């Protein structure tokens, strides 16, 4: 496990897909002892149906494909895995015993799942009066949408962002990255660190945290939502900006190669205008907005003879904010990224994984551990924390209370 300031914190992670596991990855990077409580089929069936969305670790499903799904592995470093059937009476009992030894339980099931498992907040508190419980259904546990089926990409349009992002008012676009999920993940991590400090100040006591992907997405759009009530005009679309001009994405030399650029103020403009003598360095922001098409064309003409990297470098040397629109291989070879060793090749097959954007003394990727195999820590953890004997655990394994491989 990783070292870090949260090394005294034990988290039982029942979450799945993206937002929840990303939250616990952030916390495990800071040293938290994250125990993934997994169902036997959580990583898919024993025989895979097709290739997973992010491929296989090492480009090979191997003999245990469920342990090599790259999109899953990416989110599960520095954690341990206990695979226990919560629908089994003994499995539920084991889980509640684990709760008794934990600080935090996090889940992102649908609103009714924990109640249906008879594992609601009150039950968790009975098992541990100092537990912090974070639930994160798509729409929360109350309100008219609480039972709606939700994934990040359907919530994004409901946050207002999609209508503000397209090429025109008639062409709304979702982000390509399911933006509500990472927003919810970091918000959940923020909630948990707030709660553990609050509990420490209070000297104990349980805390119930209820979140929703929906509200995390809406909350990030707060400035727009306030502005729209203050009479602000409709959002500027198509890579424009209401208070910067030029501001956009421009084609460069090569196929599908692009540069992002932002002209923050008048001084920037006076410098940038030098790229084309038809541009007047004295134009104010209002005038530049009026002449935006001409300015954008001038920049595009300037860019078309330059690679995105050389254009960015040249503009940066002039003092202008500009950067290449990077693909993943571009990011991997960016000298800034390389020097700060952001991508860490620690998983099986030396697969580079995104690092931790929090750099501080006492945190280092050199002690990271790979994504655990399904149920890898069943024996270790249930012996250490709960005192079960190997014989008892083997019997649980036989009875399907715990598992270390998916069903066929």
């Amino acid at each position: 496990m990783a070292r870090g300031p949260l090394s005294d914190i034990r988290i039982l992670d029942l979450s799945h897909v993206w937002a929840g596991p990303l939250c616990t990855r952030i916390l495990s990077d800071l040293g938290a002892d994250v125990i993934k409580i997994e169902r036997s089929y959580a990583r898919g069936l024993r025989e895979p149906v097709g290739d997973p969305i992010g491929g296989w670790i090492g480009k090979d499903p191997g003999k245990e494909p469920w342990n090599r799904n790259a999109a899953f592995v990416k989110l599960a470093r520095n954690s341990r895995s206990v695979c226990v059937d919560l629908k089994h009476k003994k499995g539920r009992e084991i889980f509640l015993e684990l709760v008794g030894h934990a600080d935090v339980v996090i889940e992102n099931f649908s609103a009714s799942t924990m109640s249906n498992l008879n594992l609601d907040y009150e039950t968790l508190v009975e098992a541990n009066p100092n537990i912090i419980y974070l639930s994160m259904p798509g729409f929360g546990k109350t309100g008219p949408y609480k039972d709606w089926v939700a994934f990040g990409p359907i919530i994004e349009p409901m946050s207002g962002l999609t209508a503000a992002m397209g090429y025109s008012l008639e062409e709304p676009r979702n982000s390509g990255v399911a933006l509500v999920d990472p927003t919810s993940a970091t918000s959940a991590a923020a909630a948990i660190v707030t709660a553990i400090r609050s509990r420490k100040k209070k000297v104990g006591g349980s805390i119930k945290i209820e979140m929703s992907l929906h509200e995390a997405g809406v909350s990030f759009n707060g400035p727009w939502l306030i502005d729209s009530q203050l009479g602000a005009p409709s959002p500027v679309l198509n890579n424009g900006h209401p208070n910067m001009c030029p501001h956009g994405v421009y084609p460069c030399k090569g196929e599908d190669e692009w540069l992002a650029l932002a002209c923050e103020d008048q001084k920037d403009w006076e410098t940038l205008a030098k790229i084309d003598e038809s541009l007047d360095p004295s134009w104010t922001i209002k005038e530049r907005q009026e002449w935006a098409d001409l300015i954008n064309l001038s920049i595009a003409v300037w860019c078309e003879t330059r690679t995105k990297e050389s254009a960015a470098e040249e503009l940066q040397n002039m003092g202008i904010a500009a950067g290449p629109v990077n693909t993943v291989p571009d990011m991997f070879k960016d000298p800034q990224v390389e020097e700060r060793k952001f991508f860490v090749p620690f998983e099986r097959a030396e697969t580079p994984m995104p690092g931790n954007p929090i750099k501080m003394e006492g945190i280092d990727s050199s002690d990271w551990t790979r994504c655990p195999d399904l149920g890898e820590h069943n024996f270790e953890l249930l012996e250490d924390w709960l005192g079960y004997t190997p014989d008892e655990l083997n019997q649980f394994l036989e009875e399907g209370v715990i598992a270390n491989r998916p069903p066929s």
Partner: protein
Amino acid sequence: MDKVLEIGHFSSGFCGRLFAQNGADVVRIKQDPLPSWVTSEAMDLYLHSDKKMVDCQDRDRIRDLASKADLLVFEGTSADSVESWGIDQWDVPLKSIITPFGLTGPKKNWRSSSNVLLAMGGYTNCSGDPDKAPLSIPGHYVEFQAGQFAYIAANAASFAEESATIDVSMLECVMALSQFTTVQWSCADHIRSRHGNDFWWVVPTNMFTCRDGWVFINITPNFWDACVAFLQLPELIIDSRFETNASRMANRDELHHIIQEAIAKVTKEELRSRATECRIPLGVVMTFEEVLEDPHLLARDFWQEPIGKQGLRMPDIPFRFDEIKRNPPSAAQLVDVDEVWNG
């Protein structure tokens, strides 16, 4: 109560907002505003409510103020701008420093903006249409996420009662939140690129035009049967072109066309109602004005009403403890530097 000194713009402001909304005593050093996506009034209300604001540019006095704080949240436009403040010499137990590219590295002094960081961090290449320019995500997502990481780090260090200098790079925040984009390259040799509103790998997951707007559906394989019921096209269930996700991917254009035809004349309300009945994931594209009237958010008492701004709806931060709503926020209060943290 934590005493937090905040210097900077959108990132430090967001970090300070989280502290202020969670009960800390946050003092912000007033700054000239940078170009924002919204008016200063809206941004100040959102970021700086419940903070104290000090109008002081004397760095020695600010340094003295920092010596009374538990935490400094400092956002610099570059590593050199941080260095120019001499913060490494400041006597404050915790320093959470946010910069566009981090405090080290060959680009540590590059100029940046949100759209530049989204581009360099791999987000922009994934958004927009394949035959058009990539789309940059508007707004302050990058800055707010960096502020959120700074908040997480500062609280973690405080919990452990550690002194620390925390280096948060905005670019690295974007790259850390990269979905499956990076492994799709390193594990499947595929460079993720733009597909408009089509999520591509899970079909149908796309936006469709309906009678009075747009809806987005996200049909993972286990929702396909329900989707067929939602579309009121039962014949699709036995159509071999659409039997599996792989076959739906192979015949995506035909399927998208069929879905578009099926819902073009149906209203958003009717589609939403059908989606609820059939239990499929569907979201309606909403404007900010519509979000403000969303009955679910109203029923959950999500909005805060700032003191003195009757009727104004401001989003709460998205987590509450024990279902307790926070007190109404009040606009930042300008105070004299000498009045802060005395005694």
